[in-house]
């Protein structure tokens, strides 16, 4: 005789294992070590947080004209507000800053549709942003065409310059890095491989500050008399080449993670070299190394501050330069906090974007 299966009723979990009290007990006070660490952490927060908040917000001065407005003992944000234009646009002519605004607004409007999944022509839009937009943006910045007043690159500065250096560095270094990584993998072309290895190892071996210094001081010595190409351009080339070497190694890591079977399947279908890499290998390899790529981008974003060595003043350079102003004594804390905040916002956004991208591109299990 077979037994009849009677399922037991579902019961709620015992009261001491759910709810906020249970969470506190298991996460913050689970043992004497955890409890004492919690107490220490609370003590540190209680002693540092209130004065910090007080300085940053509560007793800070937000509006006013000069240093005199800052008398309440808190942060003097009047300084930042007063210098805002310089921090953002550098020495770009005041009546022309709309051009910079337009460039960033256009970038925002153009990239927004890329975040929506089903949209026809996304590929063309992406291509436009990568190839055509930078050209338009450059012409708009420099002027001298369409009746725009020319603005020499020496006047470009502030956060605009930060974004320009980082943006061009990232966009140009990625394809270059991919090519270098492919070259380094090309075991059947020893000359190409050797050149790529040499290039990568050279640029990874020197510090960025040296690269910038060489490009601005040494390079002109080798150029013929009268040939003088733009300081900003030289810095950009230096940053791009430097960055591409790092990018190449990140991408190579991704290439190595692709199983041999993927290459063989692509070969067996007769795809040929470029289609094999472009359609099969790189999409997978780049997806794997998104964290590494974004890591490199973030590092570059912060490394742009080094261009101060060649006399280009990006955000931090502008803040530093402004600190010497006798009209604004004793505002260095505010200046550095502001610069740090701007960098943090952008780096944090990039980090979040990479996480979102990883989730979006996830297609289930590997293989």
């Amino acid at each position, binding site marked *: 005789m077979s037994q009849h299966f009677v399922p037991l009723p579902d019961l709620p979990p015992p009261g001491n294992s759910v709810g906020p009290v249970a969470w506190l007990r298991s996460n913050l006070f689970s043992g004497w070590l955890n409890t004492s660490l919690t107490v220490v952490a609370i003590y540190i927060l209680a002693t540092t947080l209130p004065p910090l908040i007080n300085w940053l917000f509560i007793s800070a001065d937000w509006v006013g004209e000069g240093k005199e407005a800052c008398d309440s003992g808190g942060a003097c944000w009047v300084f930042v507000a007063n210098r805002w234009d310089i921090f953002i646009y550098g020495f770009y002519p005041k009546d022309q800053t709309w051009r910079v605004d337009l460039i960033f607004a256009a970038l925002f409007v153009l990239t927004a549709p890329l975040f929506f999944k089903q949209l026809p022509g996304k590929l063309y839009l992406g291509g436009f942003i990568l190839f055509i937009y930078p050209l338009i943006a450059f012409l708009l910045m420099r002027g001298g065409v369409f009746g725009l007043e020319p603005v020499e690159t020496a006047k470009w500065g502030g956060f605009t310059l930060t974004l320009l250096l980082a943006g061009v560095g990232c966009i140009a270094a990625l394809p270059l890095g991919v090519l270098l990584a492919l070259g380094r993998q090309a075991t059947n072309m020893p000359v190409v491989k050797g050149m790529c290895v040499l290039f990568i190892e050279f640029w990874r071996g020197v510090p960025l500050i040296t690269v910038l210094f060489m490009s601005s001081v040494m390079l002109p010595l080798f150029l013929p008399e009268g040939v003088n190409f733009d300081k900003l351009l030289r810095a950009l080339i230096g940053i791009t080449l430097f960055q591409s070497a790092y990018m190449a190694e990140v991408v190579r890591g991704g290439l190595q993670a692709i199983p041999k079977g993927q290459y063989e399947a692509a*070969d*067996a279908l007769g795809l040929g070299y470029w289609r094999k890499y472009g*359609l099969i290998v790189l*999409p*997978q390899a780049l997806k794997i190394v998104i964290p590494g790529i974004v890591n490199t981008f973030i590092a570059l974003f912060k490394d742009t501050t080094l261009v101060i060595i060649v006399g280009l003043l990006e955000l931090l350079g502008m803040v530093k330069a402004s600190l010497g102003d006798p009209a604004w004594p004793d505002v260095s804390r505010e200046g550095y906090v502001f610069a740090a905040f701007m960098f943090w916002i952008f780096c944090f956004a990039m980090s979040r974007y990479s996480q979102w991208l990883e989730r979006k591109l996830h297609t289930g299990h590997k*293989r």
Partner: protein
Amino acid sequence: MTAEAQLATSKSEDKMIRLVGVNKWYDKFHVLKDINLEVAKGERIVVCGPSGSGKSTMIRCINRLEEHQKGQIIVDGIELTSDLRNIETIRKEVGMVFQHFNLFPHLTVLENCVLAPMWVRKTPRKEAEATAMSYLEKVKIPDQAKKYPGQLSGGQQQRVAIARSLCMNPRIMLFDEPTSALDPEMIKEVLDTMISLAESGMTMMCVTHEMGFAKTVADRVIFMDRGQIVESNAPHEFFNNPQNERTQLFLSQILNH
């Protein structure tokens, strides 16, 4: 094409694959020794043998996933040399199914199937998709077309892999141990697909340990050991009356376990 190859072609129009004195070494290891083999149009060959006997290497030479160092391989009248155009022409005509499926995990099943026809044969997307769907129906998984390979079972993935190869409309299909990585329950569904493909008249070369498949489908069974072809015979003769001692030993070991 060399004069020799042209001669070889004119001699045997109906031969889809000809291997003449093929030798291959991995470094100093002599993996293929003087392989001579002809496969006629529509012929179905099963290759078996112990592991390390060179059977996979041999069929991988046919679409140049491996390079042979001596001898001639002529596929569909074209000799395989280091000429990239010849290699690509041959690869278009030769489909291959792997032990580990090797589907592209970042593309859906349908995209896996239309990729090569669209990029290599320049078939318009609509047409390629219609072809792909008809093959997916033949392998009995049209409802999985929008899924990613990672969401399918092993047997389903291998059937997709077969459909993907067929979408290129190949004249020859190579199978490299297509059921070795599958759960026992899934082997049958893949073998059934291969049997119906064989019935359609496709020229097939299949490395497998599925002796039942060899008995029902093969026109010829080839036994390899230590890089050489030991015995080649019709399945009935091969299984009931093996000529070579080594073949007898092999068969007694795999059939009596």
